[in-house]
């Protein structure tokens, strides 16, 4: 069985489009709304979904995702609950790739083998553990491989060419390029500065490259879509959802927020 992530990026490449990859924290603002929000994301032109697994100590995240994580934990969201959400989503969507993004300790507690088995059964296609570089992933990697789940890896502006090479050999699915030195949601993105490092990165990998951190609107998404295979939008989207008064309102906000972004990305494609 091929991975949904491969199929999706192949199709996008054929169509000359960049992937729109929204990130939402599972359970924020309400655990019962997340599956519906995921469907709304897909209806609004998303190609791949990144789901944040809430963690108490998200050291690489800015205030927006920290707070979303805290709210979700307060509402009782666990890794088990995240997998339940994916399962619910899969009842109506068998095609859209889903990647879990978070920190390692909840998986440590769940058990590597048990997690890989259950995540695969629920319909997870990849995981990105922010605090687990390839060097520390050896054991977990074996379990993920066995169940056809890709380890998605980060590449940073400070990553050396030698390391890019090593990471791309370890990674599966796509590479997530962090657009600047900072935390999620910060306001530092300068699209022009992406050209050279993305060029360098592509010389070391055949994997698609998505870019995230600091992309917040149609303009920045369009600029990044010219250079990358995927555009990740997290904090700006979560801000839209945080105080949504109802599930229907949350879905409306998703559509209103993503529609112009999708349009701008498609218009800007090289």
């Amino acid at each position, binding site marked *: 069985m091929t991975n949904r992530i491969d199929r999706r990026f192949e199709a996008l490449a054929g169509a000359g489009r960049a992937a729109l990859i929204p990130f939402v924290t599972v359970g924020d603002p309400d655990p019962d709304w997340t599956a519906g929000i995921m469907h709304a994301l897909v209806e609004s032109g998303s190609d791949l979904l990144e789901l944040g697994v*809430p963690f108490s100590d998200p050291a690489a995240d800015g205030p927006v995702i920290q707070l979303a994580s805290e709210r979700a934990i307060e509402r009782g969201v666990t890794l088990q609950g995240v997998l339940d959400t994916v399962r619910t989503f899969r009842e109506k969507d068998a095609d859209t790739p889903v990647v879990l993004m978070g920190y390692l300790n909840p998986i440590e507690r769940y058990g590597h083998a048990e997690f890989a088995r259950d995540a695969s059964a629920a319909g997870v296609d990849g995981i990105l553990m922010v*605090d687990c570089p390839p060097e*520390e992933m050896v054991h977990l990697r074996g379990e993920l491989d066995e169940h056809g789940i890709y380890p998605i890896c980060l590449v940073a502006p400070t990553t050396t060419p030698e390391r890019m090479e090593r990471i791309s050999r370890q990674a599966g699915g796509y590479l997530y390029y962090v657009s600047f*030195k900072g935390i999620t949601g910060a306001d530092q993105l300068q699209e022009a500065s992406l050209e050279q490092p993305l060029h360098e990165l592509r010389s070391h990998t055949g994997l698609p490259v998505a870019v995230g951190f600091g992309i917040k609107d149609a303009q920045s998404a369009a600029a990044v879509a010219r250079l990358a295979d995927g555009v990740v939008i997290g904090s700006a989207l979560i801000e839209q959802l945080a105080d949504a008064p109802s599930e229907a309102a949350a879905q409306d906000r998703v559509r209103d927020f993503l529609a112009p972004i999708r349009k701008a990305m498609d218009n800007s494609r090289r």
Partner: protein
Amino acid sequence: MSIEPAIIAPDSFEPDEQGHFGPYGGTYVSETLIHAHEELKEAYYRWRTDDEFMARLDADLAHYVGRPSPIYFARRLTEVAGGARIMLKREDLNHTGAHKINNTVGQALLAEYMGKSRIIAETGAGQHGLASATVAARLGKECVVYMGEVDIHRQSINVFRMKLLGAEVRPVTSGSKTLKDALNEAMRDWVTNVDDTFYIIGTVAGAHPYPVMVRDFNAVVGREARRQMLEQYDTLPDALVACVGGGSNALGLFHPFLGDADVRMVGVEAAGHGLHTGEHAASLCAGRPGVLHGCRTYLMDDAGGQIVHTHSVSAGLDYPGVGPEHAWLKDTGRAEYVGITDDDAMAAFHQLTRLEGILPALESSHAVAHAMKLAAEMRPDQVVLVNLSGRGDKDVQTVAELEGISL
């Protein structure tokens, strides 16, 4: 018995190249921080064997910190405990009042060698923040200290001292608003300002090389103590006792004795309201292995792997993880770890103050409390050496509040 201190411990207690102590330690950080850790590792391993660097460090420890600190025979405390002689390694007499300065002097010197102009630090009790602000002032560097809002309240004197030294104290309002959250926030700062900023971590936790580096800079405590015991008493201590939050003062004392198989090592964790209540900060006694703040180690989390809020009367021990080398020393059985409750620590705080005229930090009071219990089980010709890691001046407000006294 050689009087030359065992500077290099047996190989089995050194980590591998990626900083693994057995299954513990490692480099569990975001890719955005990998380069910074690589750069630090390269610099540290280069300079730690450099004669000029070490000479400057030794000079700073002697003339600025005030080393060596004495070991002191606590005669009246020993009489009350009844049993082995209790000796105190007087780290409370260091400049700024705790062992923390040993590490910050070392890391600040490294920052200087690496050409970093800005220093950041996290702090719990404020001792490490104070020690960082102190060395930053001396070297004319900008200094930002991250401190949980809860800790800012309970350690207001140290907050003011840091400000007097020219540091900016940034309150951390996320999570439990204590030490662990201050660490998260400092990491976020470092990711963002990695080019000009040196992050001085205050304990033997974090990703490689921090656990090794912080241990090495604190190991001057154990090297001195070992030499002093042999020179002044012609014997090694039978047991070492030190409190463990992250574990830097304990490892600093223990490490040079690791090769001395007859020396027992006891780390004392904060049992808070009691280990059975769940309201404590005893990750080695009551936690389990997981991944937090850059390393695999024992930690306190819930069934879903979320890090839980800890409790201790002493802010410096109020941390849900512990240095990975301690996790390894526990599993290998080379060191043992016990818990002391808030109440027992408070009692020891008063006993040491009244019996010896030494006001200990609440953190160190945990070690004193256990040392008294341990001494009572031992023979009068034996020696328990306690790392009196800090002085209690910073805690008088907390003690007064706990006892319903308004100052």
